[in-house]
């Protein structure tokens, strides 16, 4: 019903142009040293790598929102769940942890899930008195679960608590954990989707908001799983360590030939390795997504997003489709979460803040142009670049703004608060981009 939804076609060159601008920004960041840029390839590539991870996250969100209009406000949770995978898959096994209670924990979890399944079945099958029956099943299940679970957890957690106290990993290659991260997130999405999809759409909002909080809370508090807030460090890498490179004579001469210091060269090299890995994942996901989007599948999704009632009447199983994209999108987010933890080498659940991992990702998707994969990628890399640079640009901006002021209390106060300019700068950028490209940098065609 909107009059002005004119097919205001955007130029074909827009996306390549913005990509070029971004590339220039990163090159400047890598080469030029001044108040604005750092002139270090390490910084530049470091930002780019995290930008690529954000881009994959944004792709996941874009699948859910852009293709299907599903509002996921629990991005942080799926990211965190993905991040659990490297810990469980690739860190070294903890001696004695499994013996202490690994099997019992698994069994307890199975009992827990079984209880839920049983309760659901009972609810569906029974006619009379099902409320009571379900309640009885749940209570009995909960008691058995806690009876099995608590001692096992205690045993695991008291297994050298200062260094471990967790169940440990399997010692498998860390790249495998990226897939597993996706699977974890997909499984959670399946559960959430089963409950919330097909009902009113605010259910999804609240369910995702909830699952986000719940997953982070579990990661923080279940020490046996990933040491909780005590953090897991030294997660293995799929790429070489800088220190090793620095000690490698071949690499030293290689660095010399580039007239870089070994330390710098090793940093750059490692980051390029990461970048290649991330790019492969990113491009593979985009390729698959684009293929799907440009087919009847994509058309069907758009139809569903436009008008669910009509789509349903035209024989499309809206709920099933919603579940499908929700799971796919979450899986992609999960992969990104695993990649992020791999790159950080650290699993610190306290870091999973909704502001950073839900809101900022949303900003990326919308700034990029929701519904458009390339847009999401662009938005993600750009916003991440700005988010990092705002740390420097914000205070620079305030210095510039206050330069005409006389020295004194006000100026000092403002300079003192310069760090908060990070927020203001970020806000301004966001508003400006939205202002001049209200449908995103690369709108959906």
């Amino acid at each position: 019903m909107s009059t002005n939804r004119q097919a205001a076609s955007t130029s074909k060159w827009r996306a390549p142009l913005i990509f070029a601008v971004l590339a220039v920004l990163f090159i400047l960041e890598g080469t030029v040293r001044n108040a604005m840029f750092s002139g270090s390839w390490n910084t530049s590539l470091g930002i780019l790598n995290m930008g690529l991870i954000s881009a994959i996250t944004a792709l996941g969100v874009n699948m859910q929102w852009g293709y299907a209009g599903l509002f996921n406000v629990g991005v942080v949770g799926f990211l965190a769940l993905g991040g659990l995978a490297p810990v469980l898959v690739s860190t070294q096994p903890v001696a004695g942890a499994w013996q202490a209670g690994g099997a019992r924990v698994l069994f307890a979890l199975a009992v827990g899930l079984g209880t839920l399944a049983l309760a659901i079945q009972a609810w569906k099958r029974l006619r009379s008195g099902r409320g009571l029956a379900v309640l009885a099943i749940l209570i009995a299940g909960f008691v058995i679960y806690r009876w099995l679970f608590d001692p096992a957890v205690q045993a695991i957690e008291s297994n050298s608590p200062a260094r471990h106290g967790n169940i440990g990993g399997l010692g498998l290659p860390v790249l495998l954990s990226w897939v597993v991260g996706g699977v974890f997130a997909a499984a959670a999405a399946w559960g959430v989707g089963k409950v919330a999809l097909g009902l009113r759409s605010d259910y999804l909002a609240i369910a995702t908001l909830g699952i986000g909080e719940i997953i982070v809370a579990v990661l923080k508090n279940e020490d046996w799983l990933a040491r909780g807030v005590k953090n897991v460090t030294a997660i293995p890498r799929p790429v070489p360590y800088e220190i090793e490179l620095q000690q490698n004579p071949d690499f030293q001469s290689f660095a010399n030939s580039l007239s870089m210091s070994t330390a710098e060269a090793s940093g750059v090299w490692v980051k390029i390795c990461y970048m290649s890995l991330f790019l492969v994942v990113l491009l593979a996901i985009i390729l698959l997504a684009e293929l799907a989007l440009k087919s009847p599948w994509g058309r069907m999704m758009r139809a569903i997003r436009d008008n669910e009632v009509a789509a349903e009447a035209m024989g499309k199983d809206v709920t099933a489709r919603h579940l499908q994209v929700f799971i796919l999108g979450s899986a992609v987010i999960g992969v990104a979460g695993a990649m992020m933890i791999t790159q950080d080498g650290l699993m610190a659940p306290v870091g999973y803040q909704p502001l950073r991992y839900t809101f900022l990702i949303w900003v990326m998707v919308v700034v990029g142009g929701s519904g458009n994969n390339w847009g999401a990628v662009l938005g993600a890399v750009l916003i991440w670049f700005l988010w990092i640079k705002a740390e420097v640009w914000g205070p620079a901006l305030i210095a510039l703004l206050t330069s005409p002021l006389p020295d004194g209390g006000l100026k000092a106060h403002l300079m003192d608060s310069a760090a908060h300019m990070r927020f203001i700068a970020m806000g301004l950028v966001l508003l400006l981009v939205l202002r001049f490209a209200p449908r995103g940098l690369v709108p959906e065609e």
Partner: protein
Amino acid sequence: MIRVEDLHRHFGGFRAVDGASLTIGEGSITGLIGPNGAGKSTLFNVIAGVLPPTSGKVYMDGEDITGLPPHQLFRRGLLRTFQLAHEFASMTVRENLMMVPGGQTGETIWKTWFQRGQIRREEDQLGKRADEVLEFLTIRHLAHEKAGNLSGGQKKLLELGRTMMVDAKVVFLDEVGAGVNRTLLGTIGDAIVRLNKERGYTFCVIEHDMDFIGKLCDPVIVMAEGRVLAEGSAADIMQNEEVIEAYLGTGLKNKDMVGA
């Protein structure tokens, strides 16, 4: 074909459909008329699975289809249009039609990665079919317009067009005529008859235009206050005192004031 038994649908205390029983015969074009608020659209929505009934049953070909979701009914060949058009606003008119047929290869996500050729062939065929339908509805020139930008009547046509994209068994039309140009409505009427004769579609049509009903429908069912008031051929119905009083009326009273 479709049998409705003692169907009730209440909203709070209000009985929108209040014990309606009717049959729609195979191969018929059944008209459904009745005063505003008689419960016709509500009845449609219950049959089409959009609203759960308060009580009562709906059968299709003897099978109980009460409460099945719309997409399953679609698979059984039951299609419907909406009284207020439900277009896919941000898609083109052609896409609006092409998305309709079910079971497209390209609707399975992993097949879109591996069976490109097959999908392309299907798309070509669908496209052709869509063009035919558009031609028929006189809106071929709008094929690439966004459906949201259509005029009120054009949206109604699109609504009808979608039902022509697949081989339906039974089609429920909720006031296709409202807002459609009468000349075009005539054409639509012809099309309905043709679909009915040539492809054996069964139709159930809600309409307030008595000329249209009269030309097309047999039998005609009259609803009032949630129940079936009368049933019979169009000619009979138009003579029925009760129907005239509740629904048809006796024409303009202020006619004499026209043309001052």
